[in-house]
């Protein structure tokens, strides 16, 4: 069963064009949504949340059309954007009292538990907290109504590794107790190495990769070898490459094909998600000589 389904979705914003003919986000898994800045990650999430309206096509969440049933859908969504939008001068308790009535399933005990575990004093003003604590509060607010879908749009940007780790731990713990789907947009790919089940890579408004993470890392391969091997015929098999004074590094989507092409003349390395993102971002190839 799929939680989110895109059907022929197109959206133009100035020069930028998003084109997602088909996309299915599986229920009960963490899907990492990666891509460089301006690739279309936030636009995609805003379309899911009915903040933006698609020019063509439709998006279904839990089988409901986002344009027709956005209120019912959002009842089941926990959203954390780059900015939370909470008033800086309001106390944490006041913000909670302002937001909680919108959700039938608001769990006060769970909220209190999160506030205690993050050591957030609810009598303090939101503006008095560090950016890390603000983000922890935003995530607690998103989880406290026990959503079935969690949408995270760059939630750990500008946070130190300790806070990022705490947030990830919290998410993982929450997922163990709830049947929840997470759609996690980020360019900090190390977060996804730990947590994601599926990886979607978007570039210039088009989805280039949508695969299970383990399968992706198993199939894709980075090859490292001498520059003399890098001729025109070979370049067409490469998803991306870079040349250095010592040789070249390239990404291929199929390790077996790579072995057939290069044989024992190169070294094969299992890529990280960041490697994949970097090579795909440099499709034309770059020289660092």
């Amino acid at each position: 069963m799929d939680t989110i389904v895109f059907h022929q979705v197109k959206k133009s914003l100035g020069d930028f064009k998003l084109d997602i003919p088909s996309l299915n986000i599986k229920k009960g898994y963490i899907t990492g949504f990666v891509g460089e800045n301006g690739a279309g990650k936030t636009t995609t999430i805003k379309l899911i949340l009915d903040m933006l309206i698609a020019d063509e096509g439709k998006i279904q969440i839990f089988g409901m059309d986002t344009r027709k049933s956005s209120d019912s859908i959002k009842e089941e969504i926990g959203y954390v954007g780059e900015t939370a939008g909470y008033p800086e001068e309001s106390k944490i308790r006041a913000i909670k009292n302002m937001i909680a009535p919108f959700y039938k399933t608001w769990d006060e005990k769970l909220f209190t538990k999160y506030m205690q575990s993050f050591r957030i004093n609810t009598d303090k003003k939101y503006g008095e907290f560090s950016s890390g604590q603000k983000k922890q509060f935003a995530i607690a607010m998103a989880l406290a109504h026990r959503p079935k879908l969690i949408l995270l749009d760059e939630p750990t940007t500008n946070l130190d590794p300790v806070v990022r780790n705490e947030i990830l731990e919290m998410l993982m713990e929450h997922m163990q107790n709830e049947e929840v789907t997470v759609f996690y947009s980020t360019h900090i790919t190390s977060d996804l190495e730990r947590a994601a089940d599926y990886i979607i890579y978007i570039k210039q408004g088009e989805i280039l990769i949508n695969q299970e993470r383990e399968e992706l890392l198993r199939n894709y391969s980075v090859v490292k070898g001498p520059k003399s091997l890098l001729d025109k015929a070979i370049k067409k098999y490469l998803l991306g490459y870079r040349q250095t004074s010592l040789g070249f590094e390239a990404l291929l989507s199929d390790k077996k094909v790579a072995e057939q092409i290069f044989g024992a003349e190169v070294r094969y390395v299992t890529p990280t998600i960041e490697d994949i993102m970097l090579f795909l971002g440099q499709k034309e190839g770059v020289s660092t000589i």
Partner: protein
Amino acid sequence: MKHIDSLVKKDLIYLGTSLKRLVLMAVVFSVFIPIGNVVYAFGVPAIMGYLLTYGVFAYEEKNKMNLLAISLPVKRSALCSAKYITSLIYIVSSVALTILGLIVSSYTPIESGFVNTPGFILNMVCMLLATALIYHACILPIIIYFGAIQVRYILFILYVGVFVMIGIFGEATIERGNSLAHINLMLDKGLNSISSLLILLVSLLVYMISYSIANGLYSRKEFR
């Protein structure tokens, strides 16, 4: 519609916590501006519209609170309705404060042109409400469609324009040397209660038409 009360409460919390100064200014202006000349009371709706209605919209946009609002489980029409209801609360509160200020000033030697009689007060209330409703009926769809920050100069010009007109009109009544008799004549004698109420009803209708336009605009609004 679900959650309109919570949305209204949310806006009032913003005012009570983050925009206290604006509220204080709005209260002071509502009470004191008309005391010298009852004509100036008709500028109060513009102040309320500029300070509170525009103020909250601009504050929300600046701090991305509009994104928080649209991410909540409410229909877009509920968000729009809440804005119109919140504006009505500002309007009624400011008219009440203005009348209160005028009634209190009528017991002082200050000559404002205000006549402390039920007929005059009823006409005054109706006319103030009508002015406020029509003013808000004009600015709300503009803000909703274009965004408060984008149209700040247009709103500022509208705001100043209303004040300039009222200032000119107010000064003219004084210059005529008839101590505001002109206005008194209009509010006390020229208008009877039925015509005042009719004007109020028409302005309510305009406000509702404005709501239905804004609702249509809000259903297609994009939150970038």
